[in-house]
């Protein structure tokens, strides 16, 4: 019965819907002029919106007068500025209101608030975090006009995209290239999962499968054979992760990061176990290629976190990738001579090879559990 009553109450609005374009939805207009560490701002917010949030119409007569707005200026400034952050989250630029005015837009009167924000240093890239009204009206949009060095850019803030970063001072191309290259090197060196995966595949490169003796492995006879084995593995890994890194960075393919990170951990487990219980030997480059595809998605998420500049996407992509390769080559060039020198010793077989592979498999299993179950 109660459901029926509710239905009857709801009939009232099912009748042919007026399209939502009956009236302009809620927007605010934010202009930021960046000059060194100083940012001059102007923020136009509809009086209707402020009334809904703060109640401007003090006497409740349906008319908002200048006197009523004036009485609420402090409250308006506090409300709005608490929902706008300029600069990084750990060091936002403090903001001070300089002037309250009124302006008429095509859909009614707006409160105009002028302010000055002073950052600790001139920002190279300005983060803007905008959250005005999203809690009250998720269809609200913040329309930004950003001016710096005579250039103007636009941005739209929405409930799904409240935080955006704008690159201000364009670094010279070579500098950008070096920066992203550096990030690539750094990422492979600090990304233990990638290193361990690669090492797991490289550890057997100085050995050969032995079918005669009781031991399953024997030392590789020539450096040439070992060297080509390493080249095949590294090239396959590089090729594969370059492909998926590019596809992901260009937005052609996207995978959920939990899936990617778990699969990376799994790849390390399998590569390490393959040394203890060999399944694949000569075709390890195939493992490198297949799992390399997954590792590429991992690299891409790092690149995305760095904030990809749309205008120099290609530079960033190529430089980051080359950085990863360079970092990888350094690891290989340190590993290979040492491993080759030690290959015939029982120590190599026992400690780095068997013990190392076992430890890698254990660590990676822990990662797998953590990542897959979001612990």
């Amino acid at each position, binding site marked *: 019965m109660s459901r029926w009553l*509710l*239905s009857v*109450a*709801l*009939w*009232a*609005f*099912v*009748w*042919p*819907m*007026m*399209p*939502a*374009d*009956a*009236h*302009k*939805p*809620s*927007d605010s*207009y934010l*202009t930021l002029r960046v000059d060194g560490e100083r940012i001059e701002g*102007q923020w*136009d917010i509809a*009086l*209707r*919106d402020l*009334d*809904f949030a703060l109640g401007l*119409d003090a006497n*409740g*007569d*349906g*008319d*908002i*007068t*200048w*006197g009523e*707005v*004036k009485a609420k200026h402090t409250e308006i400034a506090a409300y709005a500025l608490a929902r706008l952050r300029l600069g990084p989250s750990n060091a936002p630029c403090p903001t001070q209101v300089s002037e309250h*005015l*009124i*302006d*008429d*837009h*095509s*859909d*009614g*009167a707006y409160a105009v608030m002028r302010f000055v924000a002073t950052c600790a240093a001139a920002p190279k890239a300005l983060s803007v975090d905008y959250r005005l009204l999203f809690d*009250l*009206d*998720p*269809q*609200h*949009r913040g*329309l930004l*006009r950003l001016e710096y060095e005579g250039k103007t850019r*636009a941005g*739209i803030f929405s409930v799904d995209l409240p935080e955006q970063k704008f690159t201000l001072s364009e670094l010279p191309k070579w500098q950008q290239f070096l920066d992203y290259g550096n990030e690539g090197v750094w990422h492979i060196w600090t990304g233990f999962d990638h290193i361990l995966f690669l090492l797991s595949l490289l550890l057997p490169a100085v050995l050969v499968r032995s079918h005669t003796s009781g031991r399953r492995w024997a030392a590789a006879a020539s450096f040439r054979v070992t060297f080509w084995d390493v080249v095949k593995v590294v090239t396959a890994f590089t090729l594969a992760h370059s492909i998926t890194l590019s596809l992901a960075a260009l937005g052609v393919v996207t995978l959920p990061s939990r899936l990617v990170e778990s699969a990376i951990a799994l790849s390390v487990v399998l590569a390490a176990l393959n040394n203890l219980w060999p399944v694949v030997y000569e075709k390890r480059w195939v493992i490198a290629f297949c799992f390399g595809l997954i590792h590429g998605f991992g690299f891409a998420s790092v690149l995305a976190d760095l904030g990809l500049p749309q205008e120099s996407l290609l530079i960033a992509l190529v430089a980051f990738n080359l950085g990863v390769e360079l970092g990888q080559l350094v690891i290989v060039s340190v590993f290979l001579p040492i491993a080759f020198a030690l290959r015939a010793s029982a120590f190599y077989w026992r400690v780095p090879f068997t013990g190392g592979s076992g430890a890698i498999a254990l660590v990676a299993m822990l990662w797998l559990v953590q990542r897959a179950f979001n612990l």
Partner: protein
Amino acid sequence: MIGAVLCCASAIASLFIAVGASAAPYLPTDDAQVLEHLPGRNTTQYRELKALQSAAARQPEDLSRAAPLAAAYIRASRTEGDPRFLGYAQAALGLWWKDPNAPTQALVLRATILQSSHQFDAAVADLDRVSQREPRNAQAALTRATVLTVQGKYAQARKDCDHLFAMAPQIYATICVAAIDSVTGKSAAAYESLQQALTSLPRTDGTALAWGETLLGEIAHRRNDPAAERHFRAAMNAAGRDIYLLGAYADWLLDQRRPADVVALLQNETRVDALLLRLALAQKMLNRPEAAASIETLRARFDASHARGDTVHQRENARFEFALGNDPRSALPYALANWQVQREPADIRILAEAAVATNDVAGFAQVKRWLAETRLEYGALTVLVGSGEVPAK
């Protein structure tokens, strides 16, 4: 696709215009100066809304408080013509907004909000979920029929209407069926049965009467039947202020070349874009000097809506470019993009007008195909399209 490209290109361009378009900010000198009028205050509806707000604010996680508030906001968006209320309704449903397993009541409300911002497929998906759970949910069936009718999916919509006879007051099922039959080659029968039902059926409340009479007015309009006026008047008596009805009535008056009556009807409705559009058309027909200001305001509002990346305005945007901007070449892409989303008689009409005026063979072929498929009876459209190919200029 066209819509996305159009939208992206114009969004960037118009953001600059929109943000910079306002006049210079000023400092008012008189405290008593009225800056903004808030419509709908001091009404029972507003007081009810306030009561629902404070009830829901105390326990926002309680759907039995949030749902009536969301419903009241949706109703307010209809009477005020202000889409802000749809945003408020969405916020009231905040906890359930993204939950695919939300309670039925929340899903129906969410679908209603989604379809109001032209997210028809998402709305239908929610309603499908409801009817899987509750096959006899009349509200969901009627809402889905309405959305599918707007999308031109008449066969599916008709099924929902047929089911309604078993679970809703008969008048609503009759209206549902008439809305579809009247655009699929059975307009005379639809008109007769609806007229009959409105006078004879019990439980014909004010809403049903207003809805039914509006539909009769629209059918009569398409059939060039002067009875349209009588129906629109009856609907106005039953509905009070309703934005959709005002728009439909104004369109009929414009086709009757009675612009003075449109001005009288709409001169205080300039806040609502869709109605300002009709007012501007009437002012232009009358060569009134106010037309220029109305056109300028509309242009600024369309720019502002492009700036925020909206695509819900395309029908009005096409009509604006065609009839007020005298620019059918600009109107055609909007009309085509709109046609991908909505397929009501008004949508096919503006597409036909733009296609004929620009000699667009592909657009014209789409119109003819639709008319042949649906057997839509629409006098003004028949005259426009004729029986031949794209008329040479």
